[in-house]
């Protein structure tokens, strides 16, 4: 049995080519860890052992066949987990909800197929807040997921299981979704790199929809360079999602100028987090990156706007779950799902639509314009990912509004459709990870990756692992 797996895809694949280990052995390694440690973390809902081995054997054959190139299989041997919102043909997909408790879909999402064609090996489906409604993992109908850095704490959400699967070494990378922060925030809480791509870059086809104008398909990796590699496979036009842009982004200039939004450093920001972010800024400054204070004046409206538009779209997207063609009936919805459906229905209903939904869409324009103005001057924005480090299980569970306010630093980017990258930036005194967030112009992920890679050459935070 392998003892450990290299830190980067590049090194992993070198090892495979050198025959240090095989794909099947990689699957052995991860399955063994899952069976040993996941019962106390609850990050997986379904482990796809059979198909993992079948795929691994297939990839080992390709490896041993001789005449293949990594450009044909860029993710060969990369073991991946999928948040249980991704439809996987023939393999149970629950969306973290009792409504789809036994649902086995007849088709797979575009991104699942893309990763498998690229040689990746699916190990299983990860736990999440039901329907992606949450920022802690506590809204899963299958029990909360725990943070491997400290099991009394939440790993963040809604892609809770996905984050834990990578940080606990249950998979090499993990796919999640980010609608208002659901990849970036758990990445921050679990010491991972989490990408929310530009809206319109990665196909949403075959992923359970939460809020259609906000949902993005993101992923968790240990390093920024690997995040870049995954995006190279997941991004691009398919013939099923007609909101895809197929844009490539601007040419990357040499000099980098980063904006610090003053509205993100006010009241409500945990002092330790603030310190960590300021320290990160200093590290980058020393490398010659210029920083400038900028303003995103409508920041305070991001959460109210988000909590009108998102529930409205949620209430619509969950209308199809009536138990007729699949799944259980609507009585199986959990309380957070019901709350959001009610809220969404309310803001769309006759008499309230103009005051809430239409109004929110207008303020959304203002929030998006804020970013456009700032990006005339700077190439990226640096700010905290979340106002606090990971919080305790149960701490916010009884106050839905309090939980919603945790989205303060991530919601704006979702409303504007811009990319966001959360990168490990340090730890609190009690060893809870804290991430920093980079926001960029639409389709300018490359710039964010460049800055991130630079930061990871200067720091070792991302190399630290939790003791499980």
């Amino acid at each position, binding site marked *: 049995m392998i003892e450990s797996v290299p830190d980067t895809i590049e090194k992993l694949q070198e090892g495979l080519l050198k025959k240090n280990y095989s794909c099947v052995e990689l699957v052995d390694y991860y399955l063994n860890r899952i069976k040993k440690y996941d019962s106390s973390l609850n990050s997986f809902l379904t482990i796809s052992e059979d198909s993992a081995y079948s795929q691994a054997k297939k990839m080992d054959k390709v490896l041993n066949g001789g005449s293949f190139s990594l450009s044909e299989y860029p993710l060969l041997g990369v073991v991946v987990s999928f948040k249980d919102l991704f439809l996987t043909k023939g393999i149970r997909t629950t969306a973290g909800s009792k409504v789809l408790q036994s649902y086995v*879909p*007849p088709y797979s999402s575009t991104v699942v197929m893309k990763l498998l064609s690229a040689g990746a090996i699916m190990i299983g489906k990860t736990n999440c807040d039901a329907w992606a409604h949450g920022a802690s993992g506590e809204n899963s109908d299958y029990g909360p997921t725990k943070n491997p850095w400290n099991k009394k704490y939440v790993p963040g959400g809604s892609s809770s299981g996905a984050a834990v699967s990578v940080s606990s070494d249950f998979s090499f990378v993990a796919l999640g979704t980010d609608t208002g922060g659901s990849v970036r925030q758990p990445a921050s809480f679990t010491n991972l790199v989490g990408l929310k791509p530009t809206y319109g870059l990665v196909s949403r086809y075959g992923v359970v929809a939460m809020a259609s104008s906000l949902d993005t398909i993101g992923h968790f990796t240990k390093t920024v360079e690997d995040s870049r590699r995954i995006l190279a496979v997941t991004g691009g036009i398919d013939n099923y999602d007609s909101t895809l842009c197929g844009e490539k982004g601007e040419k990357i200039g040499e000099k980098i100028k980063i904006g610090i939004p003053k509205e993100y450093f006010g009241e409500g920001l945990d002092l330790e987090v603030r310190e960590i972010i300021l320290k990160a800024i200093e590290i980058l400054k020393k490398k010659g990156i210029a920083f400038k204070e900028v303003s995103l004046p409508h920041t305070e409206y991001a959460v109210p706007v988000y909590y009108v538009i998102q529930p409205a779209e949620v209430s619509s997207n969950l209308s199809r779950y009536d138990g007729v063609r699949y799944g259980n009936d609507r009585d199986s919805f959990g309380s957070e799902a019901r709350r959001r459906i009610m809220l969404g229905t309310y803001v769309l209903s006759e008499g309230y639509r103009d005051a809430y939904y239409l109004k929110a869409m207008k303020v959304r324009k203002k929030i998006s314009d804020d970013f456009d103005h700032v990006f005339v001057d700077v190439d990226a924005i640096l700010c905290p990912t979340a106002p606090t480090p990971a919080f305790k299980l149960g701490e916010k569970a009884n106050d839905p509004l309090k939980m919603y306010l945790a989205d303060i630093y991530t919601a704006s980017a979702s409303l504007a459709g811009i990319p966001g990258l959360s990168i490990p930036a340090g730890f609190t005194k009690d060893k809870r990870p804290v991430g920093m967030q980079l926001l960029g112009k639409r389709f300018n992920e490359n710039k964010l990756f460049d800055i991130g890679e630079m930061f990871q050459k200067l720091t070792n935070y991302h190399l630290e692992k939790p003791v499980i």
Partner: protein
Amino acid sequence: MLKKYRPVIGLEVHVELGTRTKMFCSCSANHFLAEPNTNVCPICMGLPGAMPYANKKGIMATIKAGLAFGCEINSFSKFDRKHYYYPDLPKGYQISQYELPICKNGYFDLKESDSKSKKIRIRRIHLEEDTGKLVHRTLEGRKVSLIDYNRSGVPLLEMVTEPDFESANEVDLFLREVQLAVRYLDISGANMEQGSMRLEANVSLCKEEDVFDLKKGIYPDYKVELKNINSFRFLKKALEFEFERQAEILSRNEKVVQETRGFDEVKAVTFSQRVKEEAQDYRYFPEPDIPLLTITVDIVEQVQKSLPELPSQRRERLMKDYFLSSNYTELLVSDLKRAEYFERAVILAKEKDIEINKVVGAMINQNLDIKFSEPAGLIKYLLEIKNKAFVSADEVVASIDVVIHENQQAVLDYQSGKEQILGFLIGQVQRKLKGKGEASLVSEKIKEKLKS
């Protein structure tokens, strides 16, 4: 009773477009008679994660229809989600159009007779997806509905008129014209029996003294919706029944209940289906998964150029160019195949120097376009007659009249069953015509006369 009231009728017509694939997925749109749920995919079944992708042909067909009915085409249009729950609606919402339909503000010149014509205003024509189908059954004592999603997602055109109709006849004329136009445009079979054309009418009665208000856009304070009526004939009957029913209620100074009514074909009455308590709250919002439609001037021009001659245009042309009566014209125009046959026959007739009247007569009076499946065959036949210098139909008829008059006993014998007498009578006619009677024409005309 009805004399004191004026009917006020508005129509909603749904037409299933004959595209190859459905509106938002690539399943075949041909669902008629298919085995249940064999023509479905994640998108039209509303499976988790599925997303719509709009069919260009559906949009072009809608623009075509809009232009044919004098509509303005919106340069920006979009799809919206219309939410309601019903088992045949898999997503719990229908992708339809709300504020920015593809077509708006159109009109139709309704010609009830040569002297009576009026403009019917068309409020909008928009595009949406069809629902699945429900079949009601009792299974093991339990009343159930069986659902088939084959039809779910098929593109539907919805045309809404202003309440400009005043009579059942006007409605009937209009609907037949819509059916014809849509067939001419080749965007739908518009078949009532197959359900590819569906009708809904909103009916109210306006008091005599309030008729002037109608022009100001002030309508009666109620309307009754007639639905689930699957033929023009039944709709006409239903309307006529409604006029009487509503007139009777109003004359008693009572209010007509605002509701949906169906038509009982057997009893020839309308009956209540559902009382509308309050308007449905569809919670419309723009469909986030489908980008805006930008219908440029170029696109509209391109579609305009591709428009075939419309029934109304063809009627005008036939009457003008060929001096045809409106009856004959109507017969030729009302069947697309026949109209096309006629056009081709006319071209050939001109080449062979045959009078158009002869073509018309051969088709309308003798149905020779059925005998000769290709116009070339008909023209060849007419050419033969011309060359053989057969006498005209009028002459034939005149001779037949004389022969009948002169051979009363033979006529009686034939009419009492002695079929073989026909040969004798035909011979007599040919003698009168000096053998210049065209055989099938003589035979047809004499049989006609002998029937009466």
